[in-house]
């Protein structure tokens, strides 16, 4: 075994003390935020360059496990399609309700969400570190901190840091992330918390919880969450009641967090808070 020279021993001790100093400085308050911003911004631009070269190869490898999966997926989708058509027929029976839904749909359209497409260019190591991805759009593309990120199917997370040409997105699966959600069947409110690689779990805020396996949870209610409302967060796979009476629901995330590639950032339009009142006879 090699032994350290006296100088090496000294420098090892000095660097260890320096590292501890950094930890305590950073832990006490953001006194390193300048250095951090500089390094993250620079790495962000480097990630863009690297992704342009390595991205196609990565996307190919990521796609390989799903090739066999596609046949099953088609069957699943056609099943779902039939189910949706059945529901649509049921909805048509109640014309009044249908008209109302149509008007609400128009309202949602006129709320004017704009979705900015973005490509994932870097991923954090996970496990212990925060669950984040870096995307290739930044403040130049009107991305701001706190904006909601979706992959088209469901909620991915929200923007936590913005640089000129890149932004960092905290995934909903991060254990520090909490999302206010609504059960689309019972209308109850829940808090969905990240569980890392185990996906998400949700705990009801109601004293008489009404959550069942198969329920779809959506972000919301509007105005009371920092997330854009009405996005699917996940489907309840199982519900457990603890010995202390606390109910926890396991969720299967709606967004494919494992193979994130193209995502959309919801840019709320300038008139996002402005609403036109419904007028009689104005609906569809």
């Amino acid at each position, binding site marked *: *075994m*090699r*032994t*350290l*020279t006296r100088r*090496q021993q000294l*420098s*090892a001790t000095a*660097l*260890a003390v*320096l*590292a*501890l*100093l*950094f*930890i305590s*400085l*950073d*832990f006490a308050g953001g006194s*390193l935020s300048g*250095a*951090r911003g*500089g*390094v*993250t911004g620079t*790495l962000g631009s*480097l*990630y863009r360059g*690297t*992704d342009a070269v*390595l*991205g196609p*190869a*990565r996307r190919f*490898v*990521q796609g390989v496990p799903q090739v066999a999966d596609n046949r099953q997926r088609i069957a699943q989708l056609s099943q779902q399609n039939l189910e949706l058509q059945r529901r649509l027929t049921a909805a048509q029976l109640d014309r009044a309700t249908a008209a109302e839904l149509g008007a609400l749909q128009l309202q949602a359209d006129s709320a004017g969400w704009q979705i900015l497409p973005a490509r*994932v*260019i*870097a*991923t*954090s*190591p*996970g*496990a*212990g*570190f*925060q*669950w*984040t991805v*870096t995307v290739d759009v930044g403040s130049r593309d009107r991305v701001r901190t706190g904006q909601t990120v979706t992959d088209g199917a469901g909620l991915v997370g929200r923007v*936590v*840091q913005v640089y000129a040409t890149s932004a*960092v997105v905290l995934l909903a699966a*991060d*254990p*520090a992330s909490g999302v206010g959600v609504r059960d689309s069947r019972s209308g109850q409110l829940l808090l969905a918390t990240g569980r*890392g*690689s185990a996906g998400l779990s949700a705990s009801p805020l109601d004293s008489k919880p009404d959550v069942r396996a198969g329920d779809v949870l959506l972000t919301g209610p509007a105005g009371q969450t920092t997330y854009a409302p009405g996005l699917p967060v996940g489907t309840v796979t199982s519900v457990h009641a603890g010995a202390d009476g606390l109910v926890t629901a396991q969720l299967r995330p709606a967004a494919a967090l*494992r193979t994130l590639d193209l995502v959309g950032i919801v840019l709320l339009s300038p008139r996002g808070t402005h609403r036109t009142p419904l007028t009689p006879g104005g609906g569809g």
Partner: protein
Amino acid sequence: MMAVSRLAAAAAGLITALLLQASLISPLAFPVPVSLPALLVIVVACYAGPGVGIGLGFCTGLLADLGSDHPAGVQALCLLGAGLVAGKLGGLAVQRGYRTRGTAALAAAIGTGACAASGLLLAILGSHAASLRATVLSLPPVALSEALLGLLLVPLVRRLLRAQGIRSPRPAATVLGRIPVAEPPAGRRSGVAA
């Protein structure tokens, strides 16, 4: 001149490892937290000694820290330790003539240790994403995938360190002392010398 080219090579290797980690290794190995920068530090330290391991480990760790959201210094401390241990144990591996597989296994073991240490440190610091259970559960897959990655990395690093411009000016293995050898019998002296 030699020092400048060594420094440039170290910086290039470090940044390449960080970029490959974020854009290729992390997304493909998800959710196993394999770390290419840590493995690079360890393999380089195995061949170049603890002095290089300490410096390279600290710099790589600090850069990785500042590029992410957890308290800065965590990775720096862990990779500093990993570089130190790899530098010390690497001498043993070189002495015993370990080849690629042995060195990769040693590097994977130290890398897994560094992963455990950073998970533990983050759990102590109260990072939300870290827990003791998750850290322990992630160790076996990390060990396996780092050993596989090491098989690719070890020959590469060995070849790179032998390159003329960045070769260590002194032999990396230090002589600890000379063991006095008993005078062999006269008849076998020529055999020992051969």
